């Protein structure tokens, strides 16, 4: 285990207790990710992958084990330090988008900055936050949907808004929990391609949880969880998956290259 890795965790345990029944979910998980990597965590339902991500993103505390981010321990921080982490260093994308229904898409994107700034600093901070939000919305292809409410957006548009929201605070690390789980195949691929582009062009480190192996194969590394344990060792991952997958889906978003033959499932 590389102790200088960007984010790593040692021997994580987590058990859920309801009345007298305890359900152990993670039974000693180690993991690490390097800066700029795009990691997938896969596993069957109930294998603990979402729980692992919640722990890594400091949304929850492990029962035992340690988590280190940039060589500093983060699992035992106080509440306000963990709030700071989630606001400034981490970005989150969820399966069900989780946008605030009363706010427009643009306002949703700006929420992390609004959390960061008090009323005074917001009012006197000028329009830089808003401009950044607009730029990000255009980046994800939603420049024409700024003032729509989430109820007026399609699933794919909502997820793109969520991605813009995750990016606005300039995070070091993005956690994506089943980002394509609620989308159809085509839209799902668009979303994953967007994530990959962000990872490559803008060097955003991404950890993605998914149960879709196909999508997982488009990432740098796959980590599989089975019943709370890591299955495939981390250094035995296929790395050469990427180039064949890229050209297939890209043109649909960016209209650069002509149509190429569709990627066939199972041809690998």
């Amino acid at each position, binding site marked *: 285990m590389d102790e200088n890795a960007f984010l790593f965790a040692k021997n994580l345990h987590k058990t859920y207790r309801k009345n007298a029944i305890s359900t152990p979910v993670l039974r000693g998980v180690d993991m690490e990710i390097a800066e700029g990597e795009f990691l997938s965590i896969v596993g069957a339902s109930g294998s603990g992958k979402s729980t692992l991500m919640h722990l890594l993103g400091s949304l929850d505390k492990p029962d035992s084990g340690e988590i280190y981010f940039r060589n500093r321990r983060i699992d035992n921080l106080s509440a306000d330090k963990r*709030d700071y982490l989630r606001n400034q260093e981490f970005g989150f994308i969820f399966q069900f988008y989780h946008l605030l229904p009363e*706010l427009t898409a643009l306002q949703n994107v700006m929420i992390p900055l609004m959390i960061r700034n008090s009323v005074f600093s917001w009012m006197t901070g000028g329009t830089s936050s808003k401009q950044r939000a607009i730029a990000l919305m255009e980046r994800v292809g939603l420049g024409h949907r700024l003032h729509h409410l989430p109820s007026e957006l399609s699933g794919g548009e909502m997820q793109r808004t969520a991605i813009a929201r995750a990016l606005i605070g300039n995070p070091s690390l993005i956690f994506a929990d089943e980002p394509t789980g609620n989308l159809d195949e085509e839209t799902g691929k668009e979303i994953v391609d967007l994530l990959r582009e962000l990872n490559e062009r803008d060097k955003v480190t991404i950890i993605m949880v998914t149960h879709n192996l196909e999508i997982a194969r488009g990432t740098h590394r796959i980590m599989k969880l089975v019943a709370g344990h890591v299955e495939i060792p981390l250094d035995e991952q296929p790395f050469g998956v990427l180039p064949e997958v890229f050209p297939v889906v890209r043109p649909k978003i960016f209209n650069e290259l002509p149509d190429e033959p569709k990627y066939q499932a199972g041809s690998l």
Partner: protein
Amino acid sequence: MYKLLLCWKYLRTRYLAMVCIVSVMLGVATLIVVNSVMGGFSTKLKERLHGLLSDVVLEAYDYDGFTNAPAKMEQIRNDPFLSKEVEAMTPTLEIFAMLQFTFREVPFTRPIRIIGIEPEGRKAVGGFAEHLVNPANQIKPTFEMDENARERYLIKRATRGIDFPGPREAPNLNEPPPPDPPPSKPHDSLGVILGYAIAHYRDRNAPADLPNKDVRTLEPGDEVIITTVSGAKMSPVFDRFVVTDYFKSEMSEYDSNYVFMPMAHLQKLRTMEDRVTSIQIKLRDFNNAPKVVQRLKQLFANAPLEVQTWEQKQGAVLAAIRVERSILNILLFLIIAVAGFGILAIFSMIVVEKTRDIGILKALGASNGGILTIFIGYGLLLGLVGAGLGTLVGLEITIHINDIEKFIASITGQDIFPRDVYYFDKIPTDISPMGVFLVNLGSVGIAVLFSILPALRASMLHPVRALRYE
């Protein structure tokens, strides 16, 4: 900043919150109207009481009175502190009595309180001349009859029976009493001023639009017999008097009891020499009354006198009003407490509804304190809007209350504010800015208080569980 934005959005989009706003509004409006009307009654009552009673009164302990009133008044005038404060003084002699008269061949008897006064002096102290019905008496009060009264008196006197014997000379104890009572000497009856309600009654069967529904039982010029007790032996003494004018203060306690007569005559009737039962004092500045009372107590420490301000004399009435008002305020504040429970219920619902959103905010880095602030801020906002609207509505109703009363009376046919019972021709209101402020403060406070519990629950939600909430 996100807290402000979300509070604002929740206010604009949640119609259920309107219920909270309306209930706070109703409570605040009701409190303001009731307090203003009760305040108006209280102020008017105090004004009237103060108008009738003198600022400070030196009173004898019993009906026997005290002697040497002029000397005492001189003492007061010579005192350096008091001479600056005192504007006018007059002695009075008060005693209970019975009044008898005949109206439409039927004899009537009334218990009354006679007040012997010196008219000019009594006018100077205030609360007397301005309530006399005869306009001439308001300027220069007197017990003289005017022409019509005199004519009426002379006619009636010619046809009536025996004269009463005049007031007897004080008995000389060194001589044997005379064998027979002295022969009666015809004498002119002296004038008295009757309380308005003694000489009038309201005809309840009169048509509603008749402006003056009062029936007169005694005209100026009519005679009455007044019986009272003498000072020395408490034996009954009586004499005939003629009505010259009425005293109309619009307070039933005085109008149905007071009868004014010349003090010198009353002293002779009661064989009291120069004794009086009180000295009425008017001050230049009423606010110094307590100090004046203190000084007077020092000055007359050994005399059989009691010194009081008018408030102390009427303590019971004013205290009763105060107590009534406090109780009513407490009860009405319960209305707002009920509104608070409404807020508690509705906020709990909103927190449950927003569980997922709270989870999102926490995932994005919002602190527990921040979530708490959103909901408490929401309660504060609802309280402010409700209290503000309630204040507007309450003030509008208070200002236009007489029109509203007329409107309701015309619709329902009921007389809501019977003029003869209350002696006012308009519902009196007295809006107290401090009172309005306190009502607003209290209701906003209750709104915030009742939003604390749901806000705490929201702030302590676990982000992962909240996000998973269906």
